[in-house]
């Protein structure tokens, strides 16, 4: 494979599955963290049961599994700060943005001001975002 160095593509990671019941959410997050080192134009979308990944207050002591939800808080440090949550999926599950982890990042173009990474958008807006992607990862 030739290295076309300098190529920046729009990468979208689409998360549609709940955490813990299957491993997809955890292993998808591992791809996002590794991928952050490649300086692509990265965004994440949380749709359908994927929104449950971002719910705060997860406690896995009783199920004996690793609680990986704190890792989402680190995404901002990896310059992964475009996190889109579909409003219709939240509404359908009786959730609001207040139920979700308060994900933040420091905006280097705005004197490192702390800003929210999560952006709740409508299906129509998300459809337009999907359409602009070069690569769509789903797991």
């Amino acid at each position, binding site marked *: 494979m030739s290295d076309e160095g300098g190529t920046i593509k729009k990468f979208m990671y689409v998360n*549609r599955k709940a955490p813990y019941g299957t491993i997809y959410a955890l292993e998808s997050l591992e791809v996002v963290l590794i991928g952050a080192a490649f300086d692509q134009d990265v965004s994440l979308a949380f749709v*359908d049961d994927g929104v449950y990944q971002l719910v705060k207050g997860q406690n896995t002591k009783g199920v004996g599994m690793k609680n990986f939800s704190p890792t989402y808080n680190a995404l901002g440090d990896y310059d992964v700060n475009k996190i889109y949550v579909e409003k219709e999926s939240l509404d359908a599950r009786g959730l609001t943005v207040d139920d979700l982890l308060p994900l933040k990042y420091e905006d280097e173009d705005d004197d490192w001001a702390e800003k929210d990474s999560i952006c709740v958008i409508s299906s129509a807006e998300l*459809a337009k975002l*999907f359409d602009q*992607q070069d*690569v*769509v990862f*789903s797991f």
Partner: protein
Amino acid sequence: MALLHTVNKSPFEKNALESCIRLALKGSSILLMEDGVYGAVKGTAKSSLVAGAKGKIAVYVLGPDLDARGVSKDKLIDGVKVVDYGGFVDLVAQHSATQAWL
């Protein structure tokens, strides 16, 4: 160039087709494959999903998956086009990117 969406789940078991249609932009295409082919059949409780997308989204179905499941082509919703794996390859090439609704 718009997106090619692939749906491989039966609409009777999972919401993949429903979500795909909700989030597919006008002018994009959907390929129904594996258990997703059941979404292309007319006269079912889920036929309205694909029938309702007509005019907005081009819907394709993978022929070998229909054949494997004993679904006759004359049972397909009007306007659904049947492709083989080569046609699947062409669809991927003709669209700007592919989104799998797993």
